[in-house]
């Protein structure tokens, strides 16, 4: 159950912030960077910074 866990978590939590707000995600999984970028593309969110293990995602929708 390892590799999708950070993405599952951010998908679950993104609704807790308002549109335009930024969520910080900490993940040391080597797939986290590419998959977060892909998830943002698939979900219409914005990956603001990718500085593994720290990522910032802005909610757009």
């Amino acid at each position, binding site marked *: *159950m390892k590799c999708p866990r950070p993405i*599952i978590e951010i998908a*679950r939590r993104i609704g807790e912030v308002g549109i335009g707000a930024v969520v910080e995600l900490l993940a040391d999984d080597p*797939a986290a960077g*590419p*998959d977060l970028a*892909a998830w943002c*593309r*698939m979900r219409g969110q914005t990956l603001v910074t990718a500085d593994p293990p720290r990522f910032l995602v802005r909610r757009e929708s």
Partner: protein
Amino acid sequence: MDSSSGEPMLPDARQAWLDAQQAGWGDPARLHRPGRLAAQALDQAREVVAAAVGARPDEVVFTASAAHSNYAAIAGLALGRRRVGSHIVTTAIDHSSVLAAARETGSYTAVEVDHEGHVDLERWTDAVGAAGTAAACIQVANHEVGTLQPFMKAAEICQRADVPLVLDASAALGRIELADAGGWSVLTGWAGAFGGPASVGILVIKKNARWRAPYPTDDYQGGRWPGVPDVPAIYAGAVALDCWLRAGPTIGRHQRQLIDKLRAGIAQHIPDVDVAGDPVRRVPHLLTFSVLYVDGETLTLELDKAGIAVASGSACSASSEHPSHVLAAMGALTHGNVRIGLTWTTTDAEIDRFLAVLPPIVAGIRATVGAS
């Protein structure tokens, strides 16, 4: 439906291998009868490969694997061009053996690709034209997602810059027309990819290529690959290639339809799935897709329980801890990845069954992890 580590041996290839063992072929360098039979078989094998790639038979060499061929090609051109430099140019999604060989020679550039995997030709031109570039290497088609590279344009660019090009044809040999593939210096391939033995690598070196063997050699294969060639295996590999050259266009057309059906069916029946690669400009038999919120290992195991064998490029299912560099470079989702390679015998019924079996499996895994 996993041919990523090689397609199962075609029946004709297996029979040819058995017949060759029975005939007791010997060392092709020897003058006795078994030796002469082996030499003839080796010549025939070279002719089949040469015709498939638009080369001369005496330019064809057989190695031990695709990885060996890719290393020999890249390191050999780097050695031949060492007075110019040692920088290698390749793409970000070329095979890991190509990237490893490029890393070994010194420095390299892995030119970016777009979201379908096509190399950026402007950046390719800049990299190839840079001072100190010894050689370039591009795949004909990507081994994971199937996307066809603009390899002929890439070759033209290399010719204009007078940089020798390695064409990694591993995923394409036997599946698309390569007899007029353009200006390459060295071409690599692997019999295991098309239902020949896994122990046969293919290395075609043009007569005028600035290539020097980067390893110790002997008198076999014109001093280009050492050791007594495994002629029965090589011959079986050539028989497999010959099967594809004859029936390939028909089977390839059918495979293309099956992959089209899979692409459409997956997108239609599985929400939140990322289907990778160019849907049209691709080899007929490969497909990769990634399923959001699902881990690749569980997906592979569940499909296995349902009697379906697939590969995965996800980090958790690979022997390394890292996700597919191909998918990552394309910006494609890497987790929940399924890699499909159709074989000579894949049927419509198998595809229909896969499409029936996959959605409930995905729904089940997503329910378990509480993902929407």
